[in-house]
């Protein structure tokens, strides 16, 4: 009987394995070994996030420090984000700021020019193999039984009580991408950061932006999740 149980368990595992394996997300867009062997010198880009998140500088620094530490531990040479940040700053001055002086609105042509030229200049001035970018993205996280789950994390939406229906709430995620010089992604991975809404009785309401990025543990976990496969 015991043997039969072991056999059945083994059979179930064998049968379920291929389907599970096929569904698993692979963040590597090139062979992992090639990435580690041929892309040794990686420059960091400044952290980008939607203006609506009002991301504090401290949170950006925390993320970049974690990325640097992780990559260096994996024997990559990491060039600081200030290389690109300084180039961008100079170029923004050279184009007279990114806003249209007449309307005060963002000037799309100037923004595109600074993005393109700063990218090219970063590579022109430095001996690089890749650039790593970190972006804080907003997405819809599925909620079940008052718990949101997305990109490897979960978060409860109310400490007390439980609302038993399914929904989606806005949540943030750390997206880490490593690009080659052609701006082709070599690696893209995500780590769930935090929900941007909370339940108030039977409704989900947006949190005030001052509530975002307060939990350093969540920032650390999100960044580590995005980096983990490297």
């Amino acid at each position, binding site marked *: 009987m015991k043997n039969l149980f072991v056999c059945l368990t083994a059979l179930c595992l064998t049968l379920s394995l291929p389907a599970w394996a096929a569904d698993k997300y*692979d963040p590597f867009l090139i062979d992992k070994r090639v990435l580690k062997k041929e892309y040794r010198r990686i420059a960091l880009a400044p952290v980008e996030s939607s203006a609506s998140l009002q991301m504090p500088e401290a949170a950006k620094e925390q993320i970049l420090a974690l990325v640097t530490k992780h990559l260096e531990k994996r024997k990559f040479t990491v060039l600081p984000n200030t290389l690109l940040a300084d180039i961008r700053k100079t170029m923004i001055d050279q184009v007279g700021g990114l806003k249209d002086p007449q309307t005060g609105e963002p000037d799309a042509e100037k923004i595109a020019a600074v993005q393109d030229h700063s990218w090219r200049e970063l590579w022109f001035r430095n001996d690089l193999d890749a650039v790593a970018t970190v972006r804080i993205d907003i997405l819809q996280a599925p909620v079940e039984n008052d718990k949101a789950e997305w990109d490897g994390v979960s978060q409860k939406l109310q400490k007390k009580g439980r609302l038993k229906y399914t929904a989606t709430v806005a949540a943030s995620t750390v997206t880490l991408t490593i690009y080659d010089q*052609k701006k082709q992604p070599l690696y893209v991975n995500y780590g769930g950061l935090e929900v941007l809404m909370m339940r108030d009785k039977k409704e989900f309401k947006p949190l005030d932006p001052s509530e975002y990025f307060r939990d350093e543990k969540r920032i650390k976990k999100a960044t580590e999740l995005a980096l983990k496969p490297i």
Partner: protein
Amino acid sequence: MNKKSLLFAVFALVLAIPAHAAVKTMDKIDRLPEKEDEADLWERATSHEQRLRDNGTLVAYPSIEQYLESLADRMLGDFLDHLDIKLKFVVVEQPTLNAWAYPYGTIGIHTGLLVRMDNEAQLAAIVSHEVSHFLQRHTYREMLSRGTQGMIGKGLGLLAGAALASQTGSYDPGLGDFAGDLWYNLSTSGYSKKNEYVADEEGLMLMAHAGLSRDEAIPAFEKLFENEVYGAGDPRQMWSSHPRLEDRIKNLQKEIKREKRRKGFAPGVVPEAIDYYRVIAPAYLTTARLDFAEGQFARARDGLARYQLARPDDPQGYFLMGEAYRRENPAGPDFDEALAAYETTIAKDASYAAAYREIGMAYRINGNTAKAREALERYLDVAGDAADAGIVRGYLEALQ
């Protein structure tokens, strides 16, 4: 093929599918949408199309849309006159090879599909397939047959919305409604096996009706495999991800063979490729830029070479060719092919500022300061008020 035989063929195909008996063919009805649930489906689909227009996914290409409408007219003749419906086309700026049909006769076509077809007959093979989905009211049939299953798709619809967001950069959860779900499931995974075969076979008849060679359907469908270059697991893989494509090609081959054995078989024509390149020319430029973003430089160059044949005097085709070479090899130092393309751009239009800038940037990378200065100064002469003029002045200062 005359109207009568086309009607007969459509009717025969539908008779062969008992599950669809409840839905009448176009020749048996005098108005569309026929029933309330179909009207509801149309309304949802219309709102879906409107949302795609609002978020910039559907872009107006009047000359291409007109051409596609005239192609559909040639395939259909007066078949739809009694319903007072005219097929419409919308162009989607996507590098992948895909097309789909809304239930009210609007057909969406990716620029990636337009540019990969070699001639009008190949395009007709795909367009006629979509026209057939409309003629057979396949979306409505699928809705009736999927019924409750369709509603499960709410979650799938959200995924489809997310997939769309990844293309358009804007997530609209409203696209996750039933209509959105149906559309994206159909356009990504295809209709039921039977409906796909019906559309394939009827598509051949429509091609014959327009006097086009049905043999061209084979290379046209084989090109759909090219979607694979856009990455495994990519939601935009569309048709090629479907394992039935090989089977469908085999079925088409069989069908064409059978047709050829028929008495009075008319082989149809393969129109001149260059005429096709000319009519869809704007799509080559758009798709080349999209291919740059995907890292598909060789594909971009293929399309641009066709654009140059179609519009040999337009400097844009040469400039983008230079960009394809430069972006594929951004570190240099060998920029010969890119430089040659930029020089041709200037030969075609001496005021094409961006070509001077790129020549200057290439020489700057390979250390030819004098030539870099000369070209960048020329750039500022021509485009002193360009958005990046200040940055280029900065390069010139550093080159002194």
